């Protein structure tokens, strides 16, 4: 499953642990990195391109600066500022959402839910379970025990293309192993049980 990814930039262990616990309560999320040091922020965020970055205002030098300018332009990351008091949050106009340590349970859950939900459609789209006809053909050949080279020759495509198809099949079906793909193929009548190796 494609999950909505978070990076949390926050010095305090107590607050980090609390945020992670709340985020993990949403089933389709995953906290991929924790940052405690402002110096590493740019590199880690650019390398990991999270869907959502939550950052404590103490880790930023200038409240009025557009945080997007710190990172690579291609990122579709949503930025959430974490502030000490609600009053402080008035400064951070460039952020998609503001969370305060004073927020009550309902407020923080509603804010997180909204921002997670805004990221879900693209995740679900990437998850699409429908295999293309070509991918079904590749599933069939994998289940028959063919190697990448054999599949490439049979379908007049390059080995590289076969590998791309296999990656997409694994992503769409959430099945990695050859025996798993074989089970899928038999259950969906793509091959007969007697044909499987």
């Amino acid at each position, binding site marked *: 499953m494609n999950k909505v990814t978070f990076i949390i930039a926050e010095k305090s262990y107590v607050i980090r642990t609390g945020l992670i616990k709340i985020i993990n309560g949403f089933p389709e999320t995953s906290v991929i990195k924790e940052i405690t040091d402002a110096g590493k922020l740019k590199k880690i965020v650019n390398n990991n391109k999270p869907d959502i970055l939550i950052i404590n205002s103490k880790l930023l030098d200038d409240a009025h600066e557009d945080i997007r300018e710190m990172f690579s332009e291609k990122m579709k990351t949503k930025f959430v500022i974490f502030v000490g008091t609600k009053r402080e949050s008035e400064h951070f106009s460039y952020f998609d959402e503001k969370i305060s340590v004073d927020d009550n349970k309902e407020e923080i859950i509603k804010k997180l839910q909204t921002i997670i939900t805004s990221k879900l459609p693209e995740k679900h789209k990437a998850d699409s*379970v429908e295999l293309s006809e070509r991918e079904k053909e590749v599933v069939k050949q994998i289940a028959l025990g063919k190697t990448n080279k054999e599949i490439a020759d049979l379908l007049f495509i390059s080995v590289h293309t076969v590998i791309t198809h296999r990656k997409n099949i694994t992503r769409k*079906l*959430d*099945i*990695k*192993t050859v*025996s*798993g793909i*074989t*089970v*899928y193929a*038999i*259950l*969906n009548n793509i091959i007969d*049980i007697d044909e*499987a190796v």
Partner: protein
Amino acid sequence: MIISKDTKLAEVIHHNYQLIPIIYRFKIKFGFGDGTVEQICKKNNINTEFFIEIVNLFHNEDYYSTDKLQSFPLKYTVNYLLKSHQYFNRVKLPLIEKLIHELFWEDASNKKNKDILNKFFVQYRKEVIEHTTNEEKEVYPFILEIEKCYSENKTDDLCISKLKHKSVKDYQESHDELNSALLDLKNIIIKYLPPADNSDIIERILTEIFRLEKDMADHTRIENTVLIPVAYKMENELRKKIK
């Protein structure tokens, strides 16, 4: 909750029932009374400190460190890992296989669904047995020999000859394949298998797979963060001495 020597063992189980198989692995039998961890460990001839590290590691997986576990003789760890192999191979995997046999579909797909799941699982069991047998016959004995040479400060011919052909590093084998197979099985059952007519069995199979997965992940973690690094360090020290 951090489990200490003064925690009541019964409380430990109430707090996290996933620890039931871990207790079993130390051969503690239920009906153990109202004793603390320390009292019950003593009665059962178990090293209390080691027991505490293992249960905490399993229970507090996000933050409990393996530092202390690294300081125990490796034979303790190996012994624990052997017990969990036995548990996987003799208890859990046969149970899941038996449950798969009990599945039932009223329509014509019955035989096909059962056959294909069974075939997948038998293959998986075979791979687990191959993997664990290799560890029991090759990896663990080699590591214990390294430890013996190291702790007795021996650099005699026997130890030297052992290190000539093998290294602990060769055994940093990946468990990814075995993991992926369990994940696949979960997804097949959750998403793709036609609904069985005795869906209570499906529920039991899934529950067992999730438990097994956690247990196995923990097993791998002990190997990768305790057994292999400690043995590798000993091996390197030995190699320095031999030179």
